[in-house]
C-alpha cells in the first residue's frame, strides 16, 4: 500500500516541473560525487528517518512528500514543536541515548548552542557550495532558508505615503505622529520572547543609535509587546495595532497571500535575514538518512518547495527567482543576514542578556 502510494506520488511529482530530481529516484543526484551512492545505500539500510522541527507540519507536507518520492524506502517521521520544547526534548533524549536524526529549528541561537556543545555530526553537504558563507558553520550547522525580518502594517489603516521604508523612518514616524500611533505599534517582547530578543540585539549591533531611538519612540507611543506571533499578526489585521516592528517574514508573507490587509515592507537601509538551522544529530540512529534529508532541503527542488511556503531560498543560484530578491520591493534593499556561527553564542550569555534587557526597559521608560 505504501509502495503504491509512493509510486503514485512519484508519478504526480515527476509531472511537475519543479521536482525534476524525482527522475533520479534511486541514483545519485546530478552534480553529486559518485561516492554519494554509498550514503544512499547506507540510508536504505537504515530504512527510517526521524525529524524534529519547528516548521509546521502543514507547511512542509509537500516537501516531505517529495522527499519520500525520492527515497521511497525511507520511513519518514516528522514532529513539529516549538523551539524551546524541541531543545528540552532533544537534550534529554540525547542523554538517554535515543533521539531524532535531523534537528531543524528557527531558534538560531539555541541551534548553534547545540552544535557548539557537540550535538551535531560533521558532514560536508554536496550542496554547500551553493550556500552563501554566512549560512554554514564547521560543516555542521547549515542555514536552510533566508527569511527577511520585516515591518508589517495594516494596509487598510496606514496610508501608503506614511509607511516607513527604513529603520530611521520607522522611528521618525512614530515619534512625530505620537498621538495617531498611540497604542498602535507592536513588536515581539525581547524580555519574554527569544526571537524578539535575537532580532533586537542584531539591530543594536547593526545600527545602535537608530535602534535605541526606535525603542524610545515605541515607549512614547505606548507600543505593546507580545510573545506570540499568531496573536500579533491577528491584531495587526484587525486594526487593534497597525504597525509591527521586526516580524518574521515567512509568517507575514503567508498571511499576506491570503489577506492583503496585512502588508509588509523590507526596510531599505538594511533588512535582517534569519535562517532555519538544520544539523544531523551526532546521536542519530539513522545518520545517513538524515544526510539525505539535509541535502534535499538544500537542493534546488527542496528550496523551491520551501519558497512556495514563503520560506525564501538561501541558495545563491535561486536568489533572483526564489530568494528574498524575488520579493516585491527587495531590489534596493541591503540584506544583513544573521551569521550561522559562534557569534550567536554571545546571545545566550546570561549577564549580557540581563544587561541588554535592563537597557531596553530603561530606554522604553525614559520616554514617559
Amino acid at each position, binding site marked *: 500500500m505504501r509502495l503504491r502510494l509512493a509510486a503514485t506520488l512519484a508519478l504526480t511529482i515527476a509531472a511537475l516541473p519543479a521536482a525534476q530530481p524525482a527522475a533520479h529516484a534511486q541514483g545519485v543526484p546530478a552534480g553529486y560525487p559518485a561516492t554519494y551512492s554509498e550514503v544512499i545505500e547506507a540510508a536504505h539500510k537504515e530504512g527510517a528517518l526521524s525529524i524534529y522541527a519547528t516548521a509546521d507540519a502543514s507547511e512542509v507536507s509537500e516537501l516531505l512528500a517529495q522527499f519520500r518520492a525520492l527515497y521511497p524506502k525511507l520511513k519518514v517521521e516528522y514532529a513539529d514543536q516549538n523551539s524551546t520544547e524541541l*531543545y*528540552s526534548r532533544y537534550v534529554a533524549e540525547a*542523554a538517554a541515548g535515543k533521539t531524532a536524526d535531523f534537528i531543524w529549528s528557527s531558534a538560531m541561537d539555541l541551534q548553534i548552542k547545540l552544535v557548539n556543545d557537540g550535538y551535531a555530526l560533521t558532514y560536508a553537504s554536496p550542496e554547500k557550495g551553493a550556500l552563501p558563507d554566512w549560512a554554514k558553520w564547521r560543516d555542521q550547522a547549515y542555514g536552510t532558508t533566508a527569511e527577511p525580518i520585516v515591518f508589517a502594517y495594516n494596509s487598510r489603516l496606514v496610508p501608503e505615503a506614511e509607511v516607513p521604508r527604513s529603520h530611521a523612518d520607522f522611528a521618525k514616524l512614530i515619534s512625530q505622529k505620537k498621538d495617531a500611533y498611540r497604542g498602535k505599534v507592536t513588536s515581539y517582547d525581547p*524580555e*519574554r520572547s527569544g526571537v524578539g530578543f535575537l532580532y533586537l540585539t542584531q539591530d543594536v549591533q547593526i545600527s545602535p543609535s537608530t535602534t535605541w531611538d526606535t525603542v524610545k519612540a515605541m515607549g512614547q507611543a505606548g507600543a505593546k509587546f507580545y510573545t*506570540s506571533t499568531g496573536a500579533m499578526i*491577528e491584531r495587526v489585521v484587525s486594526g487593534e495595532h497597525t504597525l509591527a516592528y521586526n516580524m518574521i517574514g515567512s509568517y507575514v508573507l503567508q498571511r499576506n497571500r491570503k489577506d492583503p490587509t496585512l502588508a509588509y515592507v523590507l526596510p531599505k537601509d538594511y533588512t535582517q535575514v534569519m535562517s532555519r538551522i538544520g544539523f544531523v544529530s551526532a546521536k542519530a540512529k539513522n545518520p545517513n538518512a538524515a544526510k539525505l534529508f539535509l541535502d534535499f532541503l538544500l537542493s534546488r527542488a527542496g528550496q523551491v518547495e520551501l519558497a512556495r511556503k514563503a520560506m525564501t531560498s538561501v541558495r545563491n543560484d535561486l536568489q533572483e527567482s526564489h530568494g528574498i530578491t524575488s520579493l516585491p520591493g527587495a531590489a534596493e534593499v541591503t540584506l544583513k543576514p544573521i551569521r550561522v556561527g559562534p557569534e550567536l553564542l554571545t546571545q545566550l550569555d546570561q549577564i549580557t542578556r540581563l544587561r541588554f534587557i535592563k537597557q531596553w526597559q530603561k530606554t522604553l521608560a525614559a520616554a514617559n
Partner: protein
Amino acid sequence: MSKPFRIAVVLATALMILGPVGLVIYQSFLSGPFFQPSSTLTTQAYEFVLFEEDDFREAFLNSAIIAAGMTAIAVPLGCIVAFLLVRTDLPGRRFIEPLVLVPMFISSVVLAFGFVVALGPVGIVSVWAKGIVGFIPWYLYSKTALIVIAGLTHVPHVFLYASSALRSLGSDVEEAARSSGAGPMRVALTVSLPMIMPSILYATVLVFFLGFELFGLPLVLGDPERILVLATYLYKLTNKLGTPSYDLMAVVVVAIIFVTLPLVYTQRKLLAAANRYVAVKGKATAQKPLAIGAWRWPAAALIVAWLGFTVVIPVSALVLRSFLSTWGEGVAIWPNLTLNHFRELMEYPNLVRGIVNTLLIASVGGALSVGFYALVNLALHRWRSRWTGLMDYLVLVPRAMPGLIAGLAMFWVFLFTPVLQPLRQTLFSLWLAYTLVWLAYGMRLVSASLLQIGPELEEAGRVVGARPAQVSRDVTLPLIKAGLIGSWVLIFVTFVREYSTGVYLLSPGTEVIGSLLVSLWGTGAVDLVTALSTVNLALILVGLALMYALGNKRHA
C-alpha cells in the same frame, strides 16, 4: 476490600505520584539538568528564584490574586447554577444544562482569542458599543477583566461537582424546609448547599489551583499589558536566561507545592465530620424539583446572562472569525465571508488522526481514568488509617506542577525509566500523564459521592455475608453511579482540551487536537486555529446532543 489490597493500591498510586514529583524536587537542588553528569547538588536555584527574582514575586502575587478572585466568582455562581438546574423547576433547564459545559470544551487560548475578537479594542461587540455610547466601556486586557473572565469560564467546573452531589440528595430535607416556610433562596443556602459541602470545598480548592496554573487566558489576555502569572513567568525565565533552566523551574514547582499543604489541611479540618454529609441512606427518597415560584424569571435571567457572556459572545465571535477572510474596525462582515479556512484545514496532514486520537483518549481513556480513580477511592473508603490522610495531601501534588513542567517531568520519567521506555511514544504514556495530572480532580469527584453513602447500606451487605470486594462491587459502586458518570463527563472535557501535559510525549501518530492548535497558533495561522476549533466544537456539540437524546429516552 481487603487490607493488603488497599495498601497495594495506595502504594502504587503514591509511587506514580512521587516518581515525577520526586524527580522535580531533586532537580530543584541541582546546578544543571539532572541527566547531565556535570550537575552538582546546590541550593543556588532557591537563592536565585526566591531572593533575586522580582519577576517571580510579581508572578506569584498575580497568580494568587487571580486564583482567589476567580474562585470567589466561580464557586458561588457555580453552586447557584447547579442548584437552579438540578433542584428547581427553572424553565428550560434541561435545555440549558448541556450549554453550561460548553466553555470547558474550548481550549482556553482559543476561548481567550474569542474574547479578543468580540470584546477587544476593535472587537465586534466593542465597535458596536462604541457606536452607541461613543466609547468602549471596558478594557479587556486589564487584570480585573482577566479575573472576571477566568471566574466566569470556570463556573462549569464548580457546576459539575455541585450538580453531581445535588443529584443524589433526596428531596425530603428541602421539602421539610419548604413546608416550614423557608423561601427557595433560604432552602438553597441553609439546606441544599450545606449538604453538599464536601463537593463545594473540593471544587473550591481545585478551582483555586486551576487559577494558580492558569495559562491560556493570561497568555492571550495578559500579553498586551504584560501581566505575568506563574505559568507565563516560566517562559519568561527561560528567555531571560537564554536556555531552559530546569533547576529554576523546579524551584517554582516546589514553591507551589508549599501552597497546597495549608489548603489540604484546611479542607481536611472542615470535612472532619464526614458523616454529616450522608445523603444516600438505607431509606429511599424521591427527588422532586423544588417550585421556586416568582424567582423563576430572575433566576433564568441570571443564567442566560452568564451564558451570554461566557459562551455566546466568545464562541460566536470565534465561529464567525473562522468564516471570515479578514476583520476589524470598519470591515464589513458579509463581503468577507469565506469557506477557505475549512478547505485549507481539510488538507492538513494528520488532522483526522488528531481528532480520532483526541476522542479516543477523552472517551475510552477518560473512562479508564475514572475506573482508576474509583479504585483508589474504594481502597481508601471507610478505612481509618493514616494512609488516607497521606493520600489527601499527595493527590493534589501533581496539579501543583504547571502543565509545562508536569509535561517535562512525565517525559523524563518515561525517558529514563527502562520499563516505561517502550511505551513512551504510544497513546498509553499520554493517558497515564493525563490521569496523573488530573488525579485530584477525578479522585475528588468520586470521593464526594462516596461521602454521601450511608454506612448502613454497606453494613447490610456485609451482614448478608458478602465479602468486602463484593460489597464494593454490588453495593457501593451502583450507588455512586451518578457520581461516576459525572466524573467521566468532567474527565472527558478535561482530556479533550488538555495538551501541555502531553507536549513532550506526543510523537508522530499520537497527535491530539490540542497539540495541532498550539503549533498552528505558534506560526500565526489563526485562520486555521479558528476553523479547527469550530470543527472541534461541532463534534462536541453533536456528542452532547447525543447524550441529551439518550438521557431523555432513559427518563421517558
